[in-house]
């Protein structure tokens, strides 16, 4: 075991896979010599060479298209899109091509591409460096969509993603790259070394895609969340003194419905929380699925906590961010509802 932050854990996952499988290649803007703007690919080009870790032109559509072609030719590409906000030029290649290649060719062709991309706000990124577009990809048939909330899961899920023969869009909440952030920007930063999930095996292991993680067992209410919001929700429930069951979804697609349903059938109350905008967001899918399966067990309506349905504003970042107060308000409402 070693102490790792999320950047180191993700780097370790790619290091291990580059070493294990000569077909693994990494490509993206600034990922090679420089090691990535967030340093996630630091040292990998030096170790594995310029043909395994490729700096690319600033052309996200080209990066993903090239990765698809490489995947069809037997490689296992890991493409980095520098910010999730920059992914849209590649949207057609992801949605029309990568997601559907296996389907349209009846299984004859596939491209085992992993697309890593940092997402989320809280770093003074403004509206072009703060988005959480996981719902946009979860809506597309044929993509697996992943978002870890801690170093241990990040490494194990990224190794699973790289080994997966299906395409995976892998979102990395950049606010928690260096430490678990509880939503209070005025508190001093906390490093991952203070968190049990900062203990990461140095070698190979996997965390399965398609399984939720019950972060905390409890009986009062179920909080279904992922990414940075896992830590915000934990803090909010603690501040209210609630015995909350907190579930980290971890993989949006495929969704582990069973774990969610078992929990909500037990607690009878549920809050869904994510940082992405609310309208048409992934939280709506979580909420609807849980309602369909748990309606007769519910003591209160399922509430959603999310970012406002506006772009992510630079100067009002913390008014936008769904912090502890917004989560706590939803929890109070759900708890006060009469059975």
């Amino acid at each position: 075991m070693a102490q790792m932050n999320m950047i180191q854990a993700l780097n370790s996952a790619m290091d291990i896979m580059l070493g294990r499988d000569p077909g693994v290649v990494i490509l993206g803007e600034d990922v090679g010599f420089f090691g990535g703007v967030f340093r996630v690919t630091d040292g990998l080009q030096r170790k594995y060479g310029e043909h395994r870790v490729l700096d690319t032109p600033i052309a996200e559509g080209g990066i993903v298209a090239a990765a698809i072609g490489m995947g069809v030719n037997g490689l296992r590409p890991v493409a980095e899109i520098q910010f999730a906000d920059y992914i849209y030029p590649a949207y057609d290649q992801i949605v029309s091509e990568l997601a559907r290649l296996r389907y349209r060719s009846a299984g004859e062709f596939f491209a085992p591409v992993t697309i890593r991309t940092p997402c989320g706000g809280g770093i003074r990124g403004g509206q072009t460096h703060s988005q959480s577009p996981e719902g946009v990809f979860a809506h597309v048939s044929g993509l697996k969509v992943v978002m870890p909330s801690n170093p241990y899961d990040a490494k194990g899920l990224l190794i699973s993603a790289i080994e997966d023969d299906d395409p995976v869009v892998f979102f990395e909440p950049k606010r928690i790259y260096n430490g678990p952030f509880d939503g209070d920007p005025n508190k001093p930063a906390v490093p991952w070394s203070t968190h049990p999930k900062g203990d990461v095996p140095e070698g190979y292991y996997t965390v399965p895609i398609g399984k939720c993680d019950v972060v905390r067992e409890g009986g009062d209410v179920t909080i279904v969340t992922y990414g940075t919001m896992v830590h915000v929700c934990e803090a909010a429930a603690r501040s209210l003194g609630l015995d909350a069951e907190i579930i980290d979804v971890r993989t949006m697609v495929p969704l582990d419905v069973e774990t969610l349903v078992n929990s909500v059938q037990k607690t009878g109350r549920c809050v869904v929380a994510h940082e992405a905008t609310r309208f048409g967001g992934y939280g709506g899918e979580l909420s609807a699925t849980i309602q369909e399966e748990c309606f007769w067990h519910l003591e209160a309506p399922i509430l959603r906590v999310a970012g406002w349905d506006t772009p992510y504003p630079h100067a009002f970042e913390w008014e936008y961010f769904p912090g502890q107060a917004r989560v706590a308000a939803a929890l109070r409402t759900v708890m006060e509802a009469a059975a």
Partner: protein
Amino acid sequence: MRPSRLHIPKHHSRPGETPDFSYLELAPAGATQRPDINTRVRDMNGLAFELVRVIDDGHTAVGPWNPHLDPPELQVGLRHMMLTRAFDDRMQRMQRAGKTSFYMRSLGEEAVAVAQGMALRPTDMLFPSYRQQGLYVVRGRPLVDLMCQLLSNTRDMCKGRQLPIMYHWRDGNIFSISGNLTTQFPQAVGWAMAAAIKGTDDIAATWIGEGSSAEADFHHAMLFASVYEAPVILNVVNNQWAISTFQGFAGGEHRSFAARGPGFGMAGLRVDGNDFLAVYAVTRWAAERARNGFGPTIIEHVTYRGAAHSTSDDPARYRPKDDYERWPLGDPVERLKNHLIDLGEWSEERHAALAKEMDEHVVASWKEAVTYGTLTEAPRLDAHLMFEDVFKEMPEHLKKQEAELRAERAEK
């Protein structure tokens, strides 16, 4: 002072007018130099503006690009083009008879796919658009298999998921046709990059129409191919038409499409796309260049879309009815036929006999294909196949939806 102005590209001729192809910059056969494959791009920029032609107006092969193919090879090329055309004609009629939903002919462009298919190695990976069915003919895919795809029947390679003509063939090294334009262009570059990373000498070739070169994917492909000097041939089939929009709206008025190459530091060649020998020769040149590490080539094939865009299109609404007959570069089948006759290796009688043989082969193939069902007649594919291949293994939510469909159908 002149006011600013907005230029609207001008159509060469509209319905009822006499076709005017004077906008084309042509050159006589044999006039264009053939540089060595290792020539630096900067030393052959002119190729992008000239026109490689081999078969002259007297049906003789002339000049430095003559590939000197043996007559039997030329006869095979003619046979492939004629089979492609016979297949297209019959499939067009079957669509009109209501047997299939859609078709796209390659009339007038057969030399592009056939000559290029023959000039490449079987292990080279092809990323075609929807008008290179000749590649399947060259690589020997039985017509029955293609027809079953058109029919979405029980032997449809796409399991009923794709519009007709969107074939794929892994074992024949032909990539799946998307339907979204130009997406395959940068994918072919990625494939070629991987070939180079793996250290093989296989190359990739890909095709789009000139209209599709307007897409961002074209730019991505050109950029990645030139940056990494990928072993790939990027073909722009300039058949002058993107449905009803002529090539001027894709930027063809002011510069040839081949000239996009030198802008990226890439070899660019403009070739008479209806000249089987010229297309073969430039493809061999570009392939050897790519295979030997000298980088990618963009080839513009100057040709003409002899038929409608698709069975859903009526070109009489936007272009003269007789324009294909007046196309100055002729018909690729006729030109190769006349060249073979000129060589003393072919005759009108043999040609007629071959045309009949091709028709009979197509008819027999169709008869077999429909025994496996049609879009509307049994036997039919199991609709539950729609849930397969979304992922490698079916996840729970799709299993659940498949069960819902099963229940829904049981109630009927």
